[in-house]
């Protein structure tokens, strides 16, 4: 049987038609209903001209329509482009334009925004999920029609596992997000590994914590469905209120959790966990950032039933190494990122891409089944990050350069050391400092900008900016600068504070003095307490 993502729910619907595929805010959708609705959407997409490989952008808030859209786009032979529901309009238009999306799946709540996006990017031919009206420049097919089209069988578009499955967007250093193409093969390689590694079954209830445009969601949706398990979609309201979240976990009998550490730190500090019965939780997976030791230790004591797994990877390679914390044993010292998954090979290399001896630091390269095809329409970057190394038989292997510096520890586990560039993690979100500086510099009032991180007090980082204003014009306030930035950057990339400076501190060589800026920020924090 071909390993296609959309086949997952066909199988699940055959094996457990009445098992809930998703649960969200009291609404449940069984596998049979999900498959039928996805088939309905696929039929609508094909009938409105979608051809194999065409891009289907999905711009939705969290909810049961998300998996319907995912599987529907895939069953129609399309390449799925999930959009961060919190992305500002400008970024959404940039993604539509860069991927050349012909179909957009959305919802009535976003009607006005969709209209604006289509005005800026007219190549979308059809919108699914909105009622037709005269103001919309292209034909619309409402969700009611999609439901009327629900069918037992998909439209039968021939797709092979090496065809594109989805394009995910993540931080980019130039203002345009990086667009990462995965095939059915690379996606399924992760899905099958994850379902097997964590022993997922149809009894499991797996949270969807992260936004559905991230690689975390490939676990929450596809790996869950591969096992016929239920995905419990966590809505923004539940995620913002830790005590409600923990009550939800208890009520929904969640068994597997996957998120960034920051979400778990918040749950541990403010989730009232002592008042909850969380014995259903058997696996807690976290990735994206280092889990601060004392917070992790406390969380493990709060949820003694669960095993904890530190998984490592990036949107480009999905998960490629993992470290399962030893049960009922405190972990001292920094947490390793573990060993290569059964889908991957790891290699630590020097600047000439030659392997370094174990224990020495170098850049981590990944070769494996879960590695992306490449960045969409970015041959130059692909040449830089997908490198070839000689292999047996006069052939070559392709490796992905992670940009992470790592070393092999004496116990055989890999340890993450640092980045080779200015990419940082802000509460688990990937942010390129250049991107934020570029956004600031795009404002006419800003002459110079430097962006840096400071500790956020909960084991992660917060973004800070320092700017020198242009001499001409009415000087804006910090608040006005932030409001302007909001129209360019997603919420996680916004500096939490912007300091206005007379001049930028510089080192004797003329570089921005990051240390002086950090010290300045720390001194201000002291004054404030």
């Amino acid at each position, binding site marked *: 049987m071909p390993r296609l993502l959309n086949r997952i729910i066909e199988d699940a619907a055959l094996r457990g038609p009445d098992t809930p595929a998703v649960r969200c805010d009291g609404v449940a959708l069984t596998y049979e209903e999900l498959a039928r609705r996805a088939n309905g959407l696929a039929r609508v997409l094909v009938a409105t001209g979608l051809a194999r490989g065409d891009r289907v952008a999905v711009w939705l*808030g969290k909810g049961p329509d998300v998996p319907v859209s995912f599987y529907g786009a895939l069953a129609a032979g399309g390449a799925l482009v999930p959009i961060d529901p919190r992305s500002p309009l400008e970024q959404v238009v940039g993604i539509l334009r860069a991927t050349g999306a012909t179909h957009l799946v959305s919802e009535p709540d976003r009607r006005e925004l969709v209209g604006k996006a289509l005005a800026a990017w007219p190549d979308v031919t059809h919108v699914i999920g909105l009622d037709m009206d005269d103001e919309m420049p292209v034909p619309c097919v409402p969700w009611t029609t999609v439901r009327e089209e629900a069918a037992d069988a998909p439209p039968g578009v021939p797709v092979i596992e090496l065809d594109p499955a989805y394009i995910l967007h993540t931080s980019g250093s130039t203002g345009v997000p990086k667009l990462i193409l995965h095939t059915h093969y690379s996606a399924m390689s992760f899905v099958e590994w994850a379902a097997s590694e964590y022993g997922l079954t149809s009894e499991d209830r797996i949270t969807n914590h992260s936004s559905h445009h991230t690689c975390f969601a490939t676990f929450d949706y596809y790996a869950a469905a591969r096992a016929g398990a239920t995905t419990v979609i966590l809505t923004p309201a*539940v995620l*913002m*209120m830790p*005590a409600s979240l923990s009550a939800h976990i208890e009520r929904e009998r969640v068994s597997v959790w996957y998120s960034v550490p920051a979400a778990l730190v918040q749950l541990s500090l*403010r*989730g*009232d966990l002592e*008042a909850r019965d969380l014995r259903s939780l058997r696996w807690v997976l976290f990735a994206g950032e280092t889990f601060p030791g004392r917070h992790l230790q406390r969380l493990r004591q709060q949820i003694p039933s669960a095993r904890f797994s530190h998984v490592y990877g990036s949107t480009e390679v999905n998960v490629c190494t993992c470290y399962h914390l030893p049960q009922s044993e405190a972990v001292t010292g920094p947490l390793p990122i573990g060993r290569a998954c059964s889908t991957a090979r790891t290699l630590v290399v020097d600047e000439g891409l030659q392997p370094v001896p174990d224990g020495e630091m170098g850049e981590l390269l990944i070769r494996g089944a879960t590695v992306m095809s490449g960045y969409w329409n970015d041959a130059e970057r692909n040449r830089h990050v997908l490198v070839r190394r000689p292999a047996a038989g006069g052939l070559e292997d392709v490796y992905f350069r992670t940009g992470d510096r790592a070393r092999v520890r004496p116990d055989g586990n890999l340890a993450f050391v640092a980045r080779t560039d200015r990419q940082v993690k802000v509460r688990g979100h990937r942010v390129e400092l250049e991107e934020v500086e570029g956004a600031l510099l795009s404002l006419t009032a800003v002459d110079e900008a430097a962006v840096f991180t400071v500790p956020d007090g909960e084991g992660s980082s917060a973004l800070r900016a320092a700017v020198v204003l242009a001499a001409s014009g009415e000087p804006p306030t910090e608040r006005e600068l932030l*409001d302007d930035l909001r129209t360019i950057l997603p919420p996680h990339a916004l500096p939490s504070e912007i300091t206005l400076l007379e001049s930028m501190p510089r080192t004797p060589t003329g570089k921005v003095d990051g240390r002086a800026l950090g010290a300045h920020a720390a001194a201000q924090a002291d004054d404030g307490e």
Partner: protein
Amino acid sequence: MGSEERVPEAAEVEQRVLAYLQRELLSPGATVGGDTELLSGAVLDSMSVLRLAAFVAQEFGIALQPSDFTIDNFQSVSAIAQYVRRVRAARAPESSAR
């Protein structure tokens, strides 16, 4: 620091919270009323919600407990007002001093 003895009126709490939202947290052009859903993700992000909770605690002299971080308490400005009044009535001001 807002830790006066009396339990504040709901309208007064709402007004102070709304003013703070407008001043510090909302994007330009965004308007909220007493019943606007604050936690939908469209109005505030998660960091803003934490700042809002910290403001409410300081402004009305409440020591936030983990069990206070619920949707019921923070879903709207009027819900926050009820929460503040309930807590202020139940918890003696001296026990909420930091």
